[in-house]
């Protein structure tokens, strides 16, 4: 029985956990539609259920495709997804930007597809790397592969998704065994950019970067290059800040100080915290959260669905759901570790990185640990194409488990 299951889905624990989370997601979306006032979320759980059925078929299909074929098709998938990302900038719609295509009632975010395409392409390139080379230059190909979709997504503008591309790259390099110091050098200008808001904090970071480079003595040109890049990032941080859309600025500012604009940008975070906090240990009861029912909770079926979990199922519900996620993610690491196929285990680890980042950013923002971005919660948040892409990823992971 178990062997049969393993032949079918590779890792029954992984797929079972994912399916369970998706079903919990359907339940939470049902609850997100239970309001005392008219809401777009009323009744959408049926659509999500339909999407889940489709996603399961897609999962079954993907998990039947040999990894070799997938690896061969990677450049094509990457090229198509990048092309779609370019196209959506001109023809797409979306909140405060252009991030999705609309086909009748169905909308589709090419960024989700591009994440998969980028993962596949990175896995193919890194999986074929012959030797460890500590030089930064040796990473030009993965870097180039990531930069293209990253920039296109940033143009939408969708900061949250752009960050996930960075997470994919770092995850892939990490798993591919690139020395940590090399990754550090690669990432450090980005950190400089984030810390640029404060001269003191950035200064401290910069001194640390210089010190580490001096101690580790990388190639001179690269070391100098990284220092210069950090310097430049620190300098352009504030002009770049002014380039951000106002709602993006507000989200980041509110993250630092929620009371800054309690009726405006701070509203979502405050209402989310109130919803979660008033849930207590056992919650207000499934479907009965007053914050949600009276529509104080914004985006209760998508970005803030975890706040509904907190309000209605309480700390116990949060604990169980987070444990389920931890289980799933843990299985992903295990699958990646067990996989003998280098392309395959890189794909699985990248999927782990993306889901982990989504979880951390989405759940973190509901309690104020993370700035508010539009990143949905995998398996739980409402959104058909997102669920579909998640299950394509799950299919790939299952295939990797089947083939090891």
């Amino acid at each position, binding site marked *: 029985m178990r062997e049969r299951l393993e032949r079918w889905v590779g890792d029954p624990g992984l797929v079972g956990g994912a399916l369970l989370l998706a079903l919990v997601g359907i339940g939470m979306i049902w609850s997100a539609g239970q309001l005392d006032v008219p809401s777009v979320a009323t009744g959408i759980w049926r659509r999500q259920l339909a999407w889940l059925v489709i996603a399961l078929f897609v999962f079954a299909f993907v998990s039947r495709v040999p990894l070799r074929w997938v690896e061969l098709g990677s450049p094509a998938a990457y090229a198509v997804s990048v092309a779609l990302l370019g196209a959506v900038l001109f023809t797409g719609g979306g909140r405060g930007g252009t991030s999705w295509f609309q086909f009748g009632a169905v909308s589709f975010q090419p960024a989700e597809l591009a994440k998969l395409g980028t993962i596949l392409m990175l896995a193919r390139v890194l999986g074929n790397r012959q030797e460890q080379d500590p030089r930064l230059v040796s990473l030009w190909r993965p870097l180039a592969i990531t930069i293209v979709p990253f920039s296109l997504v940033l143009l939408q503008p969708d900061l949250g998704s752009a960050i996930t591309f960075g997470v994919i790259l770092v995850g892939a390099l990490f798993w591919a065994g690139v020395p940590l110091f090399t990754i550090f050098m690669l990432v450090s200008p980005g950190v400089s950019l984030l810390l640029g808001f404060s001269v003191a904090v950035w200064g401290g970071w910069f001194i640390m970067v210089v010190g580490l480079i001096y101690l580790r003595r990388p190639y001179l040109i690269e070391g100098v290059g990284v220092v210069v890049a950090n310097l430049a990032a620190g300098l352009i941080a504030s002009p770049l800040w002014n380039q951000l859309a106002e709602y993006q600025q507000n989200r980041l500012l509110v993250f630092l100080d929620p009371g800054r604009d309690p009726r405006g940008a701070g509203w979502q975070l405050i209402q989310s915290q109130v919803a979660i906090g008033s849930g207590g240990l056992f919650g207000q009861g499934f479907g009965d959260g007053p914050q949600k029912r009276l529509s104080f909770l914004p985006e209760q079926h998508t970005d803030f669905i975890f706040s509904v979990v907190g309000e209605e199922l309480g700390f116990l519900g*949060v604990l169980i759901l987070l444990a389920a996620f931890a289980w799933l993610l843990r299985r992903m690491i295990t699958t990646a570790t067990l996989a003998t196929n280098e392309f395959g285990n890189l794909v699985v680890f990248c999927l782990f990185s993306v889901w982990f980042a989504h979880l951390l950013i989405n759940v973190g923002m509901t309690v104020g640990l993370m700035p508010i971005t539009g990143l949905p919660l995998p398996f739980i948040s409402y959104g058909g194409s997102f669920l579909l892409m998640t299950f394509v990823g799950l299919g790939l992971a299952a295939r990797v488990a089947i083939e090891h």
Partner: protein
Amino acid sequence: MMRKRNGRGAAARGLDGIRPGSGRHDTVGAREAALKVRAGRARGATILLWVAMSILLVSFFRLQILGREQYELQSEENRLRALTIPPPRGTITDRNGRLLAENVPGYSLSVLPGPVDTVRATLLRLAPHVGLDDDEVEELVAEYRGRPSSSVVVRDNLEPAQVAAIEQRRPEFRTAVIEMHPRRYYPPARQIAHVIGYVNEINEAELEQPQFEGYESGRTIGKGGIERQYERELGGTPGVHFVEVNARGSIVSEFAPRPTIPAVPGGDIELALDLDLQAMADSLFPDTMKGGVVAFDPRNGEVVLLYSHPTYDPNQFIGGISSADWARLRDDPRQPLLNRASGSLYPPGSTWKLVVAALGMRAGVVTIDTHMPQSCTGAYQYGTRAFRCWKHVGHGNLSLAGAIKESCNVFFYQLGLRLGLDRLLAGVDGLEFNGRAGLDLPVEARGQFPPSREWYDERFGRRGWTESVTLNLSIGQGETAQTLLRMAQFYGALAVGGSPPIPHLRRSEVLDARRADWSIELPDEQRRQLLDALTRVVNEPGGTAFAYRPSDYVVAGKTGTAQNPHGEPHSWFVGFGPVDDPRIVIAAIVENGHPDNTVSLAVPLATSLMQAYLRTEGVPATGIPYPRPGSRPTPTVPAPGTAAPAGAPTTGATTTGAGG
């Protein structure tokens, strides 16, 4: 444990699995190294996962377990809106328990707080149903901006049809609240307007005042008269009713988890006022004329009558007076809003002569029988100027008693001069004619009388005036002006002796016991001599009020004719009765009511009101102390409650007519 085994297993399997096809020895070493790295990375990722999960859990623990109470409260505050339950105001009754102010069911319309644009849109949609114009909408929006956390009261007095119209379109007006609430109603309407005041919503300025501390916007308060004076007692305490609203401020449920706090009704107040007397004053008052009348019990100060004419209907102020009605009242040249009984000043005219007489007797410069050196020949020569008496042919030589009875100016000119300006000013000041009677209404005019010579110096310059001002001051003209109430208080002091009571509208033993801190300080015998003279004014032929003496009671009083720059002289009467045991002291004025010496409109008004009051109070009719001359026809005295012609009868009286 599990993690380690998995990691090792991966390394073991990876040995063969990684990079298939390469079998060289040095690559095997490199492969082993790579696998070691891989195992470390897996461990690192797992640790990162646990750390991140722990941080998330700690955050949720802090919010949900440690912060639960605070967030639950915040969640409730989010969705609960407190609606005020207006308390029923206390009723106000007259001395016989008849309702002067009561509460009837009324409907108010208010809009719940929310975004300003939503509030404005709701108001605009409500406008056609409740008759708001654009300016009024903007006013309400401005008011809401000032207090964004409280509801906007749109209308306080919806008609049932308007209520129905809004209820039928309920889905359009999710944030509109119609509440039934007690509405003020004054059954006697115009008869009591100046006493009762009115109620309306508290305004911005009043909210800042210390006397309205703790009041919230939207609250109905007394805006004048008794309603304002006793607001704290009448007002009661509002209750609170919680409703559940959604993020847009629409009511979702009328039943909130917090209990309703009921309103505490206001206390009832009983006035000393006699509603019948008010009604009679209203019907007797010469309709085209202006003036007022006030009466109180000289024993305890209970005000039984306070009426000002023309009057208005205070009910039109309830729930907000329309701007058209308000403009009509405000711009009416007859000034119906003015309280002429206690809020207006008039030259006291001849009613003042008793003040001068009392001061003269107290100073010892005159007794009741004293004659003045110069007989009255119709005028008195002082310096280069002739000061006239109202009776051009003259009164001849009169004693003080006669001069009071016939109101001879020439006598009082000489009395004033004999008393001297200094003693006159000081004496009047001692009687506090520069002050108020102390009535329990928010507004009472303060009497005016020159306090000292310096006052004249400041006003006219040191050389700008002469002692001749004494002459005018002696007959109640010139630089003095008093309220009806203040003059009545003086006559009350004269009638019963000692310090007079402080007139008060509310029935209260505490108020009954209060006394003014001045008295006439005249020995009882001399005071009675003055009373006797005042009795002759009404009851003896030749007395200036003889034509209007009441049939049942012996009353005393003094007529007055106040010269004024606004046309014909005002007609005054101040009196009390019965003389033996005064139960009422009354002061009345009819502006421009003394066109000639045969008509003095205030006198019949006052005497008939006095008689009516004494009858209803059950005071036994007394005999007539002075024989009625048989030849004289009985003067018409209106029976109480009947609308007798208020104009002065001209029944053959030759020597009657008001003094001047």
